[in-house]
């Protein structure tokens, strides 16, 4: 068994990806808010090297690049919540950030960390999915920096498991600026507003024109091993007039397409009921307020 016996704190992306390639067995440290308790509880074993990526300036900052907003992986939840570009173009994300854990954890936890932890209940994941986010990945297998991008839903493999290659770093998340008429809702359901792992969460987004929703995206959290797309629900809504019949059909589709488990936070039956009722409630709210 290898033990943690090395610590590195690279100060550039280039240095980090070179070290990742050379050192092999590396645990990445960003905000630490999950790594610390997970490692104490024995759920995450440290690899030989602990790499603190917080000193890498390229991983910070929020900017507009063409028709996209780029959020650096090290952006804290607090920074994301307060940023003018997020508040203007992606209010759904600011709202989700406001319901994230507590002030102390928002100040430390990072967007990149929330994504790489790949928790089925990760609070930014469902909103990012319905906003059409892509993750930006970087590595340096040979002499040149290699970057690739992937739609967020494809990135998740299972609880705590992603498609991130061993020598790869998640550098940012990119979100297209929503078109005119875009509506989006996120609802997180737990037992208290603060510091709660959600029993379920739902995101719904689309373009509303003449009472019809199009380009619909639906995602659910905490009902499967990863956050999942609500493809059948999307189909029940796409191009249809958002009336009582459509809403009822969509809520039924949502309930039928999720396969949650029973655990300490909620039973499978309750989760399915909540998915049904909350989907209906969100859609009724969209229909009533536009």
């Amino acid at each position, binding site marked *: 068994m290898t033990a943690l016996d090395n*610590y590195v*704190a690279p100060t550039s992306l280039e240095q980090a990806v070179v070290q990742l390639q050379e050192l092999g067995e590396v645990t990445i*440290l960003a905000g*630490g808010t999950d790594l610390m308790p997970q490692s104490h509880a024995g759920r995450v074993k440290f690899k030989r090297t602990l790499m603190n990526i917080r000193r890498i300036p390229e991983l910070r900052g929020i900017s507009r690049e063409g028709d996209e907003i780029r959020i650096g992986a090290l952006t804290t939840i607090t920074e994301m919540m307060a940023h003018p570009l997020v508040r203007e173009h992606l209010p759904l994300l600011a709202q989700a950030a406001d319901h994230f854990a507590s002030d102390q*954890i928002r*100040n430390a936890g990072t967007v990149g960390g929330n994504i790489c932890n790949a928790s089925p209940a990760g609070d930014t994941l469902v909103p990012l999915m319905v906003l059409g986010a892509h993750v930006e990945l970087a590595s340096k297998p040979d002499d040149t920096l290699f970057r690739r991008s992937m739609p967020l839903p494809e990135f998740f493999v299972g609880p705590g498991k992603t498609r991130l290659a061993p020598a790869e770093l998640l550098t940012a998340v990119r979100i297209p600026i929503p078109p005119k008429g875009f509506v989006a809702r996120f609802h997180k359901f737990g037992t208290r507003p603060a510091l709660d792992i959600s029993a379920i969460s739902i995101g719904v987004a689309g373009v509303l024109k003449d009472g019809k929703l199009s380009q619909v995206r639906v995602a659910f959290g905490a009902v499967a091993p990863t956050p999942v797309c609500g493809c059948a629900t999307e189909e029940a809504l796409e191009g249809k007039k958002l009336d009582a019949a459509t809403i009822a059909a969509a809520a039924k589709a949502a309930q039928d397409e999720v396969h949650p488990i029973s655990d300490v936070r909620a039973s499978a039956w309750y989760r399915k009921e909540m998915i049904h009722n909350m989907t209906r409630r969100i859609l009724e709210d969209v229909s009533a307020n536009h």
Partner: protein
Amino acid sequence: MSQQTINFTLNGVPTRVSVPVQMSALEMIRNVAGLTGTKYGCGEGECGACTIILDGVSLNSCLLFAVECDGRQVTTIEGLAADPVGLRIEKAFVEAGAVQCGFCTPGMVMQARQLLEQNPHPSREEIQRGIEGNLCRCTGYVKIIDAIEAASKE
């Protein structure tokens, strides 16, 4: 086990310590630097008893790796003795009777300090939101909120 030497400012004092890389900032502050005002409550970020201020933002020190303090400014409850706003909050806690067993108090005071830094005149609701990451099992929070409100009005 790998040790790492870090240099940082602890309550205004330049400090140099050697720590195991997986050690939390809380363990470092209490057991290496010897400042025991910061409390260990839950060890997983639920209770806020270990709240410190790092470069101007409040954090759970139990979730922070000690190595991450390298090159940074760390303020603990002991450091508020040199801070007029900090002293005002402490006095208000005493006067409002916002302390019973006292275990949550250092974290509450630190988070109140952070709240008043960002929002010098918060509403009661904003105070409630501000301390949502801090648990108190004795008081029922009312007197804590009273104390923070009083400190903001002085």
